[in-house]
């Protein structure tokens, strides 16, 4: 009760944050924005500003890191290296895989679950792409479809285990991680499979290579484009679909959702399937960027994805959060990595700094007026 009441203390602006974070609210963006701007009788304007700051916390965090990156960026001939088009494109390209995974992870965390298998599924998908196209000489399309289907089915099976048998998703996906990694090793004989392009035997079709290239006049890497499409699709989906309401309800109060007629089991299976699908998509992108599929690809990616989701403000307890926040969280981590690398900071120190940033983000969320 205290919680609920504290929340109402910053009612309008806060409700707007909810409108953004929890789609089931009525107001579209327009109402939300106008309400936040008009200082209604209810909230003092200072409270409104604070609430807005918290609402866009991950975006402001990203902005802060971005500005810090500009300041600390090494310069050559007066040019800020961080801001060069090439570098910026690289930043986003580097986060595109984690970003795609993190979108799926957001779905899972929104229903109060966790998926530890995504890194391993990425590895399995990378191996699958390489083996099918290089060793089995499959065409581009069938390979992609099969690899994506593997991720989808793998995720759905995990969803069934957690939703129907009732094993906690942490355990299910911990097992799934081992299984996917094992499958990848078996499929590749434990070896990385190098990808060469061409029309001959044991060469992947050139059409696959396109996925690693750039578009829009060589400015935008295709992986970035894929990430953007996935993120936007997910944001739109969470805003308009009936399914997303069910998803938030399951995460918010599973028992109430069930008694309200929400098909809880179906929602859970679908969410884990989506997460698996996106992990395998990230695996395809990974394979094309590295020109190989190795069973060791993607080790630890699940943790980076979770970090991006957490920095993005999605509650690990479920029922509250947004994909937009996750995208900001992923970009924040990407910019941070980039600027540390540009300055040749020792990689161990990099880890340390990343850890501190995650703690800081989580701490800030505790401080927000209504969480």
């Amino acid at each position: 009760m205290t919680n609920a009441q504290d929340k109402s203390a910053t009612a309008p602006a806060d409700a707007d944050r909810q409108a953004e974070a929890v789609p089931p609210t009525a107001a579209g963006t327009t109402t939300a924005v106008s309400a936040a701007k008009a200082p209604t009788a209810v909230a003092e304007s200072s409270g409104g500003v604070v609430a807005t700051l918290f609402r866009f916390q991950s975006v402001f965090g990203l902005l802060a890191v971005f500005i810090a990156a500009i300041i600390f960026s090494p310069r050559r001939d007066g040019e800020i290296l961080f801001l060069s088009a090439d570098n910026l494109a690289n930043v986003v390209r580097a986060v595109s895989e984690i970003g795609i995974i993190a979108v799926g992870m957001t779905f899972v965390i929104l229903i109060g679950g966790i998926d530890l298998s995504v890194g391993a599924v990425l590895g399995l998908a990378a191996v699958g792409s390489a083996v099918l196209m290089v060793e089995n000489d499959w065409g581009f399309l069938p390979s992609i479809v099969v690899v994506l289907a593997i991720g989808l089915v793998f995720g759905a099976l995990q969803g069934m285990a957690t939703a129907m048998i009732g094993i906690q998703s942490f355990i299910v996906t911990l097992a799934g991680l081992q299984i996917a990694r094992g499958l990848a090793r078996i499929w590749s004989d434990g070896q990385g499979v190098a990808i060469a392009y061409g029309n001959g035997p044991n060469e992947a079709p050139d059409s696959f290579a396109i996925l690693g290239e750039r578009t829009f006049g060589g400015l935008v890497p295709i992986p970035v484009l894929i990430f953007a499409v996935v993120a936007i699709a997910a944001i739109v989906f969470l805003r308009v679909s009936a399914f997303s309401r069910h998803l938030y309800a399951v995460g918010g109060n599973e028992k109430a959702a069930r008694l309200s007629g929400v098909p809880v089991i179906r929602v859970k299976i679908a969410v884990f399937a989506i997460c698996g699908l996106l992990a395998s998509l990230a695996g395809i992108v990974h394979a094309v960027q590295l020109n190989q599929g190795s069973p060791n690809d993607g080790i630890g990616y699940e943790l980076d994805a979770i970090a991006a989701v957490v920095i993005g403000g999605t509650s690990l307890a479920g029922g509250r959060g947004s994909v937009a926040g996750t995208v900001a969280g992923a970009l924040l981590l990407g910019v941070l990595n980039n600027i540390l690398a540009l300055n040749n900071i020792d990689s161990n120190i990099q880890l340390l700094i990343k850890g501190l940033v995650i703690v800081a983000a989580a701490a800030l969320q505790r401080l927000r007026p209504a969480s």
Partner: protein
Amino acid sequence: MAEVADLVRMSRIGKRYGGVQACREVDFTLGAGEVHALLGENGAGKSTLMKILSGDVTEYDGQIEINGRNVSFAGPTDAQAAGIAMIHQELDLVPGLSVADNIFLGRELRTRWKTVDRRRMEREARTLLERSGVDLDPRRPVGELRVGEQQLVTIAKAISLDARVLIMDEPTSALTTSEVERLFVVIRELRRGGVGIVYISHRMEEIAQVADRATVLRNGQFVTSFDPRRLSTTEVVEAMVGRPVQTMFTTPDAAAGDELLRVDNLVLKPRRPRPGRRDPDGISLTVRSGEIVGLAGLLGAGRTELLETLYGVAPGGSRSGRIVLQGKEIQPRSPRHALSQGIGFVPEDRRTSGLVLFHSILANTVVSSLPSYGRLGVIARRMERAASVRMADRLRLKFGRLQDDVGTLSGGNQQKVVFGRMLLTEPRLLLLDEPTRGVDIGAKSEIYRLLGELAGQGIGVLLASSELPELVGVCDRVVVLRDGRDVASFSTADSSEGDLLAAAMGDRAEFEGRAVFEEVGGPQ
């Protein structure tokens, strides 16, 4: 009335939550050895006022004096140090820990070696429970206890704090008659020891029995203070509601139509035994359309379990007997399935089973009827908003904005949201489990009005309740359950509360004449 120096003096207390003024310039005093009842509808500001006193709410206007000294608490720990303990309506116990562990949680007794002194904790817990008149093994895990027993544990815990001020928020809502009596003995004993007690309750007869003084709040403001032994219930209710209460119970016309639901000798044998549950063991009943049928019975008689079976939330196992809805036999598999058959359900505990408290009013209202707003799985916001607004109007929901969290509403209005959600699915049969528990009188009478209206539209209602006046007043017919069987059926036109009670108790207990009956039904 204790005319000694005030133990607690709260002056001009104000608190606002966003647009809602929860408390406005409220004065409240409590003497040593006084029992001061606090009355008011849900949302009247009682809980807020007491949360301020107990340090749960730290930002407010006004002043608090304890023993004449100005205080300002930074948190509940501060308040406890000042001798103020609060028994919350929501039980704050850890289910996995034992009774003794819960009582001493955070201040465990230690041995010489600084390890936990389990034996001494159990011994002292036992003494404490005996003092509170509770017969409980302190080693039992709290999760195994009935809600009423859990309530007694929280009371024992609060007493063990040796507080000078004890705040009890609806302490008896799940207690049996005899437990309530024993609690009153404890309260009187504490009073003799000079403890000041704030007693929040909706039950007028309890207040008349135990309180020295009563204060009524309405819309966050002080309304009146009186001697509870002198004012009549009607007068008190009018003070709380702020307008004369015409008829609390609408008795709908018994223009019942065709048979809607028939349950024939329903027996459920779960695969795994469920301790503390009473699954249907041979229940037969009918509900006609437009009829409101009550389900009476003591706690543990199997009312909730019957409703859950009909709604498809019963555990797996073997089922025999028939459930026939409008002439067609059905096997409710899940809430979703039941809803698709036209069966709606309002659960007993809206906080844990009804609502997502931190989601919006809108989201909570439309969640069961989503596919009907829009096409191909895409929601038309205007349609769902319209549906939600329509339902809010129909239920006379008091709220700020549809996108406010449902948790910001008062209990009665939260309950209306659960009702509205079900009504949007256009059910033919509505299953209600204690729909007015923890709901204030104003919202209660609105819910009754709504039930009458629904019956008028031909919807059948099966209403499980522990409140006899409600059953007799609202229902056309009442079916009494005992030990998972139906044992009697009354037309409310020619039966009294006493008849129901006698049937519910069978020959195992004597009639105690209490309006609200909540005896233990299970074998001891």
